[in-house]
């Protein structure tokens, strides 16, 4: 009988309740969409931050004084790669030296490789920071860099180099130019295959393959530091950094603080924004339900008076109304959940250009919120508990 009455109550006031249902399902749609976005944002942002490149750096301890002591053994790269992480990490070693650099007259890479001693310039050359690394991995840890490449013919050179845009200006070098690098009594020829624009200190550097720089510097199997791109939340990165520090105690492991903090701040801002919007939506939905229920309460004064006269306790009568509101919240919530998840997928594709996965934890959360909103919105019906049957029958109330 209980559900029979609840159903009759719903059916009898279908016009008014349709307004509340619309408000609840709309509120649920937006809430579900935002919650789904919020839950999926962590994973999406993790991927996005990965695109920002290096977020952990491993170097020699800061206290080390001798220049040799400030270098690491290249074998550390394999030890780092052996440390398990939830996501795949990119590990790239670097060796930095400063070398005098000359631009050569010959620009044909094949001719340059055969350049003779008499072709070598007589002037002292320009000091440039040489960065020896794995050139193929450079884009993985620095995906935001802008790289302008030479034609494919020029890339056949045995010693390609990537030249920072400011260094290129300093040397008056362009794509395809041949450069001579002098370090102590050793020389190295290379061809500019790419001009790099990073917007940072790398614009003043030149990038070559790690073995080339190691040979030029006479530092075989030595590196200056290792840059690591670790995907994950700030907590996951922190955890990885801790494990890394334990595994290689003789090296200094430090997160790239600005990036980690930016990631954390962005997470907080997004979560705060979503939470504030969800709260606002809930308040607006409650107000809408409240207005509908207030009108309904006026209509039901007589019914409540009669039910009390028939021996209905206010607890049993209110239970009917609260379940009616609960059913409204549940059904509106279910509809809103499906629409909201669909909406979040649409937003994901249109706004972020990514495929968002439905997070089914959104469903119980949204349903719970909507049932709570409906019951809170049914507050005016609770005021009917004060209705006096005799006043209703006398027409005084």
């Amino acid at each position, binding site marked *: 009988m209980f559900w029979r*009455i609840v159903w*009759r109550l719903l059916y*009898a006031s279908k016009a008014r309740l349709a307004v509340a249902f619309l408000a609840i399902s709309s509120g649920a749609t937006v809430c579900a969409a935002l919650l789904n976005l919020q839950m999926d944002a962590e994973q999406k942002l993790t991927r996005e931050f990965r695109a920002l490149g290096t977020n952990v750096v491993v170097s020699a301890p800061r206290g080390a004084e001798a220049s040799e002591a400030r270098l690491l053994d290249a074998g550390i790269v394999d030890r780092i790669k052996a440390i398990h992480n939830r996501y795949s990490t990119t590990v790239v070693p670097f060796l930095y030296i400063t070398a005098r650099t000359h631009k050569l007259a010959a620009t044909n890479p094949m001719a340059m490789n055969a350049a003779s001693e008499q072709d070598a310039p007589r002037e002292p050359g320009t000091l440039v920071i040489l960065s020896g690394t794995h050139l193929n991995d450079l884009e993985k840890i620095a995906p935001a860099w802008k790289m302008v490449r030479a034609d494919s013919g020029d890339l056949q050179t045995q010693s390609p180099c990537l030249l920072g845009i400011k260094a290129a200006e300093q040397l008056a070098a362009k794509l395809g130019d041949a450069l001579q690098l002098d370090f102590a009594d050793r020389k190295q020829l290379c061809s500019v295959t790419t001009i790099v624009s990073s917007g940072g200190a790398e614009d003043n550097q030149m990038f070559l393959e790690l073995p080339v720089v190691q040979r030029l510097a006479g530092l075989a199997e030595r590196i200056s530091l290792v840059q690591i791109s670790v995907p994950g939340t700030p907590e996951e990165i922190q955890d990885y950094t801790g494990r890394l520090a334990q595994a290689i105690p003789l090296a200094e492991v430090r997160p790239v603080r600005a990036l980690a903090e930016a990631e954390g701040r962005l997470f907080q801002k997004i979560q705060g924004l979503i939470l504030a919007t969800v709260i606002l939506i809930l308040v607006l939905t409650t107000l809408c339900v409240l207005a509908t229920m207030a009108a309904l309460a006026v209509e039901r004064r007589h019914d409540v008076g009669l039910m009390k*006269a*028939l*021996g209905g*306790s206010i607890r049993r009568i209110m239970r009917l109304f609260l379940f009616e509101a609960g059913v409204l919240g549940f059904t509106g919530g279910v509809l809103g959940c499906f629409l909201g998840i669909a909406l979040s997928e649409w937003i994901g594709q249109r706004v972020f250009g990514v495929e968002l996965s439905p997070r089914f934890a959104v469903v119980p959360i949204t349903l719970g919120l909507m049932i709570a909103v409906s019951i809170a919105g049914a507050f005016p019906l609770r005021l009917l508990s004060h209705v006096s049957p*005799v006043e209703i*029958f006398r027409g005084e109330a």
Partner: protein
Amino acid sequence: MSALVQTENLVKQFGNLRALDGLSLTVQAGEWIAIMGPSGSGKTTLINILGGLDAPTSGRVMVDGSDVASLREAELVRYRAERIGFVFQQFHLIPYLTALENVMLAQYFHSVTNEAEATAALVRVGLADRLEHLPSQLSGGEQQRVAIARALINQPRIVLADEPTGNLDEANEEIVIGLFRDLHAAGNTILMVTHDAGIARQADRRIELEHGRLAQIPVSNSKGEQQRFSHLR
């Protein structure tokens, strides 16, 4: 016979108006009492107080051994559900419940619902073919019969009827009064407010109120029972 209802010096004041002014009355179990009097004489107020819908300003109301005036809200709820059956002039059915559901609603508030019993109650009042009809689909007489079935479904100790035929045509009035006659014959106690002397004559006795007091000595409609009312003389 034992007194089922007893009021002593009952007063109900609405501001400066005394709706009941020291009314004392006794009703025996199984009696059919017709309460008459002009508008504003306190008839409905008396019914409301006896039914636990309203509280007296002063005086004592004993119904079936309970001092109604002293009952707390929760006790009044049980009192109304278990001991009283109301029949109103305006029928007061829930408009969105069917005839059957209106009867079952009283069961629901009393204890548990029993659809078969509710159906039988409606069959008894001649509404076997109107079970699933909404009040708006029923005539006035049919609605009042639903109200009577609802009033009786929990087998109350007293049926309080406030002008039950006031909104009915002659044919339906006869049907409804016939039902009350059957109720009375089955031993139910009935207190009925009416303006119709013809209906009042069918009751065991009439009491007439005026300005909240007994206007005249109650008249017994059955010879040989005059002595029952001697205490009111």
